[in-house]
């Protein structure tokens, strides 16, 4: 029984009536999945009683298997950054398929502005531009990358908002265009040997730090600002949003720009981490980013989802990937199982939504 309130007609904000947050379910799912892998480690005969999560061999001072945790977080951090943007796009009722190739194109372009002149005393063998582009301050490649991302996002958003092309088609086109740009930039040659400062961006655990910082920023944007409220409103009921005086078209352009800038930043981190950029980079990233958001409880019809959910979705994604390797599942089966899990997550979520709807 909810607490009785003293306002007229029960008009009081009643915390006890607040719905069970969806994110909590994903968190429970995350714990369950870890427990399953832990159990598999004990049950499967070829695992010799290894532990998934805990450190049983005293390699570290902590009780957890720090190496595995690090790998899990590091693995999802970069796609996770993309996923933060994809989440906003999907909440606004759209979809962005272009983020993977955008990562490749941005990485190629950015890396060209981040090259160092001398590699072990020899001239840089992978130089794209002339001497003017060597050893530029770190801010140059970052600005170039973000500007390129913003441009691609603006094109995506403008087409979707002003020509009524379905987001799926517009970003599918951009998917091919960006992959083309990535290959055309150096005619397929990789771009390598960045400056030391640039290499710092993605070194060690830096991708995780960027992911966490950007996740907090995006969470604040979506939850506490007008931008976020309008993003949800447009995804929930575009006509209502328009009728309320929200500039829906301009807002859509803004959402796609932010998403593409996040993907561009992911490209900067990834190329810095790999110390090279290749035109084939970011394969399946757009789909994995969407999958993280979907596991995180986002609604593909818009209006529902959160950054916390997506971050948890990314963790689930990473744990499953790491767990499959841990139980020595063949790489072929890993992709298949991943696909099945994504479908399962959506089915489960829809079933839960229907149940919630019929209860009220």
């Amino acid at each position, binding site marked *: 029984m909810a607490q009785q309130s003293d306002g007229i007609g029960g008009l009081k*904000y009643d915390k006890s009536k607040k719905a069970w947050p969806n994110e909590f379910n994903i968190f429970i799912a995350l714990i369950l999945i870890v427990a399953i892998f832990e159990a598999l480690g004990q049950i499967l005969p070829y695992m010799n009683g290894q532990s998934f999560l805990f450190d049983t061999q005293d390699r570290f001072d902590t009780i957890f298997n720090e190496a595995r945790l690090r790998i899990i977080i590091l693995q999802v951090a970069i796609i996770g950054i993309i996923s933060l943007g994809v989440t906003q796009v999907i909440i606004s009722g759209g979809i962005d398929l272009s983020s993977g190739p955008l990562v490749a194109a941005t990485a190629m372009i950015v890396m060209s502005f981040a090259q160092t002149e001398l590699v072990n005393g020899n001239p840089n063998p992978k130089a794209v531009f002339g001497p003017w582009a060597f050893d530029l301050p770190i801010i140059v490649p970052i600005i170039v990358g973000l500007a390129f991302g913003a441009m691609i996002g603006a094109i995506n958003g403008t087409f979707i908002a002003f020509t009524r092309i379905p987001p799926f088609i517009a970003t599918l086109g951009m998917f091919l265009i960006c992959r083309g740009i990535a290959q055309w930039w150096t005619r397929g040659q990789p771009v390598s040997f960045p400056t030391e400062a640039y290499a710092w961006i993605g070194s060690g655990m830096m991708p995780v730090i960027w992911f966490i910082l950007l996740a907090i920023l995006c969470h604040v944007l979506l939850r506490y600002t007008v931008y976020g409220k309008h993003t949800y409103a447009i995804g929930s009921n575009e006509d209502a949003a328009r009728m309320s005086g929200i500039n829906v078209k301009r807002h859509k352009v803004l959402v796609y720009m932010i998403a593409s800038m996040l993907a561009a930043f992911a490209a900067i981190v990834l190329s810095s981490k790999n110390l090279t950029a290749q035109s084939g980079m970011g394969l399946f990233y757009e789909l994995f980013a969407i999958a993280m958001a979907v596991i995180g409880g986002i609604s593909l019809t818009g209006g529902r989802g959160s950054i916390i959910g997506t971050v948890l979705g990314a963790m689930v994604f990473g744990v499953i990937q790491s767990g499959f390797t841990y139980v020595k599942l063949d790489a072929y089966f890993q992709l298949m199982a991943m696909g099945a899990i994504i479908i399962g997550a959506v089915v489960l979520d829809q079933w839960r939504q229907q149940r919630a709807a019929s209860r009220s």
Partner: protein
Amino acid sequence: MSGIELHDMGDIILETRDLTKHYGGVHALEGADFILRKGEHVAIMGDNGAGKSTFVRQITGVEQRTRGEVIFDGHPVHFDGPLDARKAGIEAVFQTLALADHLDVPDNLFLGREKTFMNWLGPFRFLDYKGMRQDTLDALQKTGVKIPNIRNTIQNMSGGQRQCVAIARTASFHSKLTIMDEPTAALGVQETAQVENIIRTLKEQGEPLILISHNMRQVMDLVDRIVVFRRGRIVANLNRDETDGQDVVAYITGAKTQPEYDVEGVT
């Protein structure tokens, strides 16, 4: 009828002259001359297809009229869309509700006009949740709307609660003219009473209203004047105090037509 001069409308908030809408060969609305005074509540009645909703759609810019004039607040107006009309001060609650299902009551009430702080952040300015929640409670209390928990999302609410939120939203805008198209059509007894309370509140505040309704009791209870449509034409303009239900029904069904509206083509 057209002795009133343009731009000199006195206490008239809305006037239509010869307002006409044809859909191809269908004459959905024909030569509607209509006047609404400030603070006045007028009901529009008529059978299905009589032209009531068509009439409202021409005023609110949902559709573009074939012919005629709409004069609102002293100016001839031509709204390109409902947003235009809303900006000019005409608030309409339509049969299909314009609420965002995934947002809660304060979010919907303040959609597009949020209370914010740190406004220098532009589109990223922060929302004043506390202020909006308080104002929502005040607005709902003033209109007597009962919603158990305002933090509930619209999708978890009953049809009546949704309608109440939509109407409370409209009422809280302090618009120059409110139009409600069958606001209680799908509601239960209690919810209907709530909506009627909101309408009475609007009357007390002196805000003019056009109410489309099939509910005779409701109309007789709430409005000052009843305008009857039949076959796309206005056939009667009745003061509530000088008429009764049977009389109105006679006009609706076509048994009677007021002499000044008795034009050729209306039988």
